[in-house]
């Protein structure tokens, strides 16, 4: 069980975010849900790179070869993931700000009615 649990946690977080996105009544809440979906990918990536008993892949205070290290590639991918997530969140929040100003609502259902 333990050898798949972290992957299942990632899947659970992703599905929770999807549920929030689909039932959201507020666009800012929906952006939060999207961030939850995205955070599941951090869990998945870091879980893929983990190795039992290994330490961080930084050799400033570690003699190379003395200990196993976790996979640095997925850690770098996670960093990329976080940066992209932050920019997407910023852009979406800016869009919501304009929607709220122009239409006076941030409820996606009311917005659909406005469009007719």
């Amino acid at each position, binding site marked *: 069980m333990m050898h*798949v649990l972290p992957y299942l946690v990632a899947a659970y977080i992703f599905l929770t975010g999807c549920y929030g996105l689909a039932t959201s009544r507020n666009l800012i809440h929906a952006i939060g849900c999207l961030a939850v979906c995205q955070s599941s990918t951090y869990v998945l990536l870091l879980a893929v790179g983990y190795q039992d008993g290994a330490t961080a892949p930084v050799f400033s205070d570690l003699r190379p070869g003395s200990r196993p290290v976790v996979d*640095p*590639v997925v850690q770098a991918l996670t960093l990329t993931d976080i940066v992209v997530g932050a920019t997407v969140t910023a852009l979406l929040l*800016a869009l919501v700000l304009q929607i709220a100003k122009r239409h006076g609502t941030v409820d996606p259902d009311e917005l659909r009615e406005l469009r007719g």
Partner: protein
Amino acid sequence: MNRLRLVLLAVGGTGLAALLVAACLGLPGFGGRSHPYGARAVHASLTRHTANTIASVNFDQRAYDTLGEMSILFAAVLGCVVLLRQARDEHRAQPQPAEVARPVRRYALIVLPVALVTGLYVVAHGQLSPGGGFQGGVVAATALHLLYLGADYRALERVRPLAVFETSDALAVSTYLVLGAAGVLAGTSFLANTLLPYGTFNTLSSGGTVPLLNAAVGMEVASAVVVLLANFLDQAVEIEEEHGS
């Protein structure tokens, strides 16, 4: 309508959950010993004298992807600036100075220089210790905004002339491109880390072009975060709708 949506969500969600669980069971076990990409990345990083393997992956082995990442950040900032500009039916109000509780003012002003230096330290030591341009840039940029907490919005506006930060954002992206193109001119390939000597392992100047690319990214992220926050804060503090128009 809403019931239909929930039923659809339940069916789709269950199907997706089943597929995800099946996929999880097919993955290599958590904590396993076999990490072929990781082992090769660590080896490449050590041969190029970069102590922080993640910095080596980001700014050497996958430097081209980091260029894309920077472009995403740059484009997102551009998008936010366009979306959050002052509209025709809005005007700019002068922000009013407000009373700040004395302990808040004191601690904000004490922490500000510490946070700023920490941010710059994290950028400068990106090739040695955990951190780098992305993390340090965010720390340095948010440090400036302690002035908004400790003093007021006008004080913050005085220390961050927006035009300067917008220019430095663009300059940092160009610096990254120029460093990449320098590799082409030197006869190797775009963003190849063969331009500079690799230096002594675990010193500030080690890693070839990694510290330079790191600094460019740090500058870009710091400027981008300042510009982003400035646009959002302007909306909250300065820009108001015209009444009676």
